């Protein structure tokens, strides 16, 4: 079957350039909005998922979904940390395990834009062995164990009051001095860290929130969270099943990556729903616009279609030609949309993590994945917009078309 040459479509788009431009821009605006939402979701989940380690295990109280809800009494924490055989040791014989306390504290934003909740984490020297290179002191020095000193995550420095090197932060009635700024690729960069026992006293938090550890290589944690399992239920196997039934310290155990990914589920779901809702609603409007443009193209070229059919082009060829033109419109719209959205890439923003009520700073990320989805979406818009006009074009009889009926 002979196909209508593609140059015909290109010329046609060019001749009707004002309509083409408006349609492309209209689809572009739609694609830009949708990819903006996708980029936000991507930035948020990348921060959490990519920074989580598979070789760090997180222990939480049974029934707790985040460290804010979780708690271990001192005694229970000691039992678990001292007796669990799966906990690894370093070459010096130090067990790589630490109990942390955690509290989201009220702080003022620098801009005077109100308050935010900043996570404060009380840690011990082994904590730094557990996280290894993930925590790097970027300015100043680490806090001295047992003193009222804290180190502050890089992303807090210009967002939250009293987070500069040398500043004093007061928790309830106890002042703490900022002696260092630390870097981290994940959510820790929005936290304040200090000595666990000093912080737990200042904040009157006698219990610990979670325990973190490196496990002996080859240990199978065997935890499958609800969001990763096929039947939507949680599954326990290996170590996690054993600890679930433990008589002394029953608890939940998972990898850090699983823990952090779990933290993003609520916000990711909200953003995905918002993205789909916008894609659907704005997509409908964009499809209507594309249909209008293609119908106008059809009306202007009725006699040409008559000529094409009388020359022997099959209806299918006419149909494909019109579909191709619509797809081209969609593709251009998609590219324009991505260009519109591109300046968003890297823009930093903050939002509340609904699960812990804390603020997390992160950046929009227009990853190739987001861009591919955006362009795919624009092609679907073109396809849907072109279908009806293309069908009408293909159904025209040559004589009537040439007579412009």
């Amino acid at each position, binding site marked *: 079957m002979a196909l209508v040459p593609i140059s015909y479509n290109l010329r046609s788009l060019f001749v009707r350039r004002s*309509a083409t431009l*408006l349609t492309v821009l209209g689809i572009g*605006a739609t694609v830009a909005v949708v990819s903006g939402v996708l980029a936000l979701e991507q930035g948020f989940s990348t921060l959490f998922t990519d920074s989580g380690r598979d070789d760090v295990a997180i222990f939480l109280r049974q029934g707790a979904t985040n460290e804010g*809800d979780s708690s271990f009494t001192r005694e229970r924490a000691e039992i678990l940390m001292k007796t669990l055989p799966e906990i690894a040791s370093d070459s010096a014989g130090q067990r790589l395990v630490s109990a942390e306390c955690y509290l989201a504290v*009220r702080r003022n934003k620098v801009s005077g834009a109100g308050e935010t909740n900043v996570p404060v984490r009380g840690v011990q020297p082994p904590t730094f062995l557990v996280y290894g290179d993930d925590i790097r002191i970027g300015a100043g020095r680490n806090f001295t164990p047992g003193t009222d000193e804290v180190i502050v995550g890089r992303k807090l420095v210009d967002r939250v009051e009293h987070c500069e090197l040398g500043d004093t932060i007061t928790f*309830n*009635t106890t002042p703490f001095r900022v002696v260092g700024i630390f870097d981290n690729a994940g959510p820790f960069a929005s936290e304040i860290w200090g000595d666990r026992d000093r912080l737990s006293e200042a904040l009157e938090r006698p219990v610990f929130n979670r325990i973190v550890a490196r496990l002996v290589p080859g240990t199978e944690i065997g935890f499958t969270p609800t969001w990763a399992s096929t039947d939507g239920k949680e599954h326990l196997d290996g170590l996690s099943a054993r600890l679930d039934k433990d008589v002394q310290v029953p608890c939940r155990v998972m990898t850090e990556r699983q823990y952090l990914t779990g933290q993003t589920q609520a916000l990711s779901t909200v953003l995905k729903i918002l993205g789909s809702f916008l894609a659907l*609603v704005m997509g409908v409007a*964009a499809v209507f616009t594309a249909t209008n443009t293609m119908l106008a193209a059809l009306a202007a070229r009725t006699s040409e279609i008559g000529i094409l059919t009388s020359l022997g082009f099959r209806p299918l060829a006419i149909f494909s030609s019109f579909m191709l033109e619509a797809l081209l419109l969609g593709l251009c719209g998609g590219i324009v949309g991505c260009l519109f959205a591109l300046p968003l890439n890297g823009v930093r923003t903050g939002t509340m993590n609904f699960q812990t009520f804390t603020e997390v700073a992160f950046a929009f990320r227009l990853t190739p994945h987001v861009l591919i989805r955006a362009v795919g979406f624009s092609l679907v818009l073109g396809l849907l917009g072109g279908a009806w006009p293309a069908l009408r074009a293909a159904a025209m009889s040559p004589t009537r078309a040439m007579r412009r009926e």
Partner: protein
Amino acid sequence: MPFSLIAKNLFKHPLRALLTAASLAVALFLLCVLRSLVVALDVGVRNAAANRLIVQSSTSLFVYLPEAYEAKLASIEGVQNVCKWNWFGGYYQDPKNFFAQFATDPEALLAMYPEIEIVSGSREEFLKERQACLLGEGTAEKYGFKVGDNFPLIGALFQRTDGEPWSFKVAAIYRSKKSSVDNNTLFFNYEYLHKTIDAGQAGGPQGVGIFVLELAPGADRVQVASAVDALFEGGPQRTQTATEAEFNAQFVSMIGNVPLFVTSIGGGVMIAILLATLNTMLMAAREQTRDVGVLKALGFSDGSVFGLLLSQSLLLCIAGGGAGIALAVLSGPGMAIKLGTMFPGYEVTKGTIMQAAILTIAIGFFAGITPALRARGMSVISALRSNA
């Protein structure tokens, strides 16, 4: 210029007119919904009561205040009534079935919150019985709870040592007369929670989440607030006392950039729809070029030709945009129920409708002005000669 000519031109291509109007309807619907979401965010701030103060820990949302503060607060001059509020954080059967629950002082609650109106059940039973609760109409409807029903709640924050859920009895159902209290909350007696923990039958944070103070008539709220904070300056827990509006505003501020984010989305939607309408109007104008020539040759003025094209655009937008706004208004109550727990104050307000209406007309104007100006300036000869 007769109206029938405007309408005839507009519906010469019924499919095109319909598609454009439908896109407009969809876009305006979306804009109304987005706007209503932003409005819903700070409904608690706008409708807050002026005579209530909230005492909370100045350290953290998650730090509890000592129970002993209650008596000290009651003795401060200008404080008429004190009510404890404790977040319970339970769920019904599955964590997805979530609604707000507070352990509180029933008598003080009903005295301080006149907007809580009991619509069925007995006030006395709520005050007297230990496991009694006062349930919001919305939640009661959602789960089909009726007065006299017993139901279990699983305590995620306060776990019972026997591993069983907490049991509650619906003593009364309320409807809120103002959006300062939503229609989905469960209130129960603080004593129930407190006594169960004291008896060693449950574990969880000790103390009181927040105290709500009712000011005596004529009391100065700034003075009372600073008196409270000064009283606890030396600990054991420092407090931060705020008006109800300020207290609600802190949650809005935590959400951060959401209003800006939603506004940007709205901007994108507007640009898309403006381009779509402009596209349609340019197409229509091109097809009507010859008609314009004929009209002008017949002696119609430039102004009436201008009006012909502009009114087509306005008419199209009013029809489409109007449908979208109507859809948003009609779907409002349904959306409010769906969004109940996340956006309790969802409502398509008069302000939103006005803004949307102005926007609709503006789109119609901008989309119509270019082709209308072009038609006005066109000479009879060149219009008649055109070959569209």
